[in-house]
């Protein structure tokens, strides 16, 4: 199994989720994060105090999928999350040793 971590633009979340559902992903976990990268954040000014945080709000999706679905998932995220402008985000793939469904105790790919 693979853990796919994708960092995307927040307004793309619905689109990506729908696309993933279509290719057979059954679950994912989503976190609100802040991203630092090539895309720069807006400058904020409060009574003359200027902050350029360089932090941009992003959505982090993590989904564990069977090995054979991994490539498909990465492609799908890439296709559905892209706008072509800077800050579209990244996708990382990591090996997962074991998965368990808490409710049933099932393990492995059937747990996903």
């Amino acid at each position, binding site marked *: 199994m693979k853990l796919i971590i994708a960092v995307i633009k927040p*307004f793309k979340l619905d689109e990506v989720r729908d696309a993933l559902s279509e290719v057979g992903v059954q679950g994912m976990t989503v976190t609100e994060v802040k991203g630092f990268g090539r895309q720069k954040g807006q400058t904020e000014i409060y009574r003359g105090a200027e902050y350029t945080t360089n932090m941009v709000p992003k959505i982090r999706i993590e989904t564990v999928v069977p090995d054979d679905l991994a490539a498909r998932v990465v492609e799908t995220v890439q296709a559905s999350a892209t706008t072509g402008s800077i800050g579209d985000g990244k996708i990382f793939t990591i090996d997962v040793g074991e998965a368990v469904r808490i409710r049933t105790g099932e393990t492995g790919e059937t747990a996903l």
Partner: protein
Amino acid sequence: MRHAIKLAAAGAATLLAALPAWAANVAEAVTEAAPEAAAAFTPTADMVSKGDTAWMLISAVLVLLMTIPGLALFYGGLVRAKNMLSVLTQVFTICAVVALIWVTYGYSLAFTGGGPFIGGLSKAFLMGVDATTLAATFTNGVYLPEYAFIAFQMTFAMITPALIVGAFAERVKFSALIVFVVAWVTVVYFPIAHMVWYWAGPDFLPAATDDAGLLWAMGALDFAGGTVVHINAGLAGLVGALIIGKRTGYPREPMPPHSLTLAMVGAALLWVGWFGFNAGSNLEANGIAALATINTFVATAAAAIGWLLIEQIAKGKPSLLGGITGAVAGLVAVTPAAGFAAPMGAIVLGFVAAGVCYVFVTAVKSRFGYDDSLDVFGVHFIGGVVGAIGTGVLADPALGGQGFFDYTVAPAVVGAFDMGGQVLTQIKAVATTILWSGVGSAVLYLAIDKTIGLRPSVEDEREGLDLASHGERAYSS
């Protein structure tokens, strides 16, 4: 020995000395239209009640409370967090800009004589007004300090354009909006306020029976601004929403309110402040002000309960947003009727407003697909029309209403009420407002859109107007 003082005392002492005081918004009548009649009546300082003055000042404060933070939070809570500050800044800035315009020329245009459509500039920069000049009320021989009347009416001019912004929240350029508001109050609000509310006053009208605004002279009843404020703003909102276009992503992307908590606080403060708006419009602290107070309680309550019941029946879950939306619809509907209807009539009006507005907000909007972000049209325009027409019915003394007064004689006498005729008059007043506001607003929006541009870029909209337009974030940790 010389003593400086808080000059507070200046006016008071003058009042005590009963120096000849000037008639306020009737000055025109007095000095121009009928100087000889004026000789016959001169309001004096002892015609002013401190109870009334206290009531009008606190009413003005209540209407400000209703606008900021009330309306600002009601609207702000309903947008996404990234656009929160844009809404707050819009409402706040509109208040400030209009306050300045009001004392510069707005009050003069609205509340001096001149013609049926608009007043003159004789009181521009509040010329001739001071702490001893007086403004007429609706009772013969009862006057207010003119400054108190100006302050009270100022707050109406402040809130009306602020109501509009809800219709195209989350997608308007700040600078363009402020330019629009300056133009709109000048071209749309002041004329309509003049048409509906300007008249010579009970002691002066008999000598100058045509010294009144168009709709006032027509006999239209609008206790606290159903036409001037709600129908007017509600329509200007819809026109703006149509011209600016839908929010990016609407209606596909979810756009839930970022804080229903704050929206509820805003709605509650709207209710609280609306007592200044409705009962203050009586200009005196008496039994009719108390009637308007009761009506502002029960019509609102009825509309809130009405909306909740509809939701209970339609989807099984009565919602807070439903309850507060109903409440606002009830407040809007009772505005023109506040001092005319009996409490039981006001309750009926509230239930009707809830039902009609519910249909517009949930069914009509999605049916026609316009993006009236915060339902300014569905609540203020529709509720305003229900209220304006309902007033023609509920004011009927046969239904416990207060009827109307014939001011062509002094002291004024109760007039003979004709419900059918009154309803017709109300419809005419509504139609006039729709025409003036619709056309005027459309022209202004289009002119500004072609020049400055009304809409921010899609990137700015995605980013959120808080950061894009104001360089700030509403919430940090």
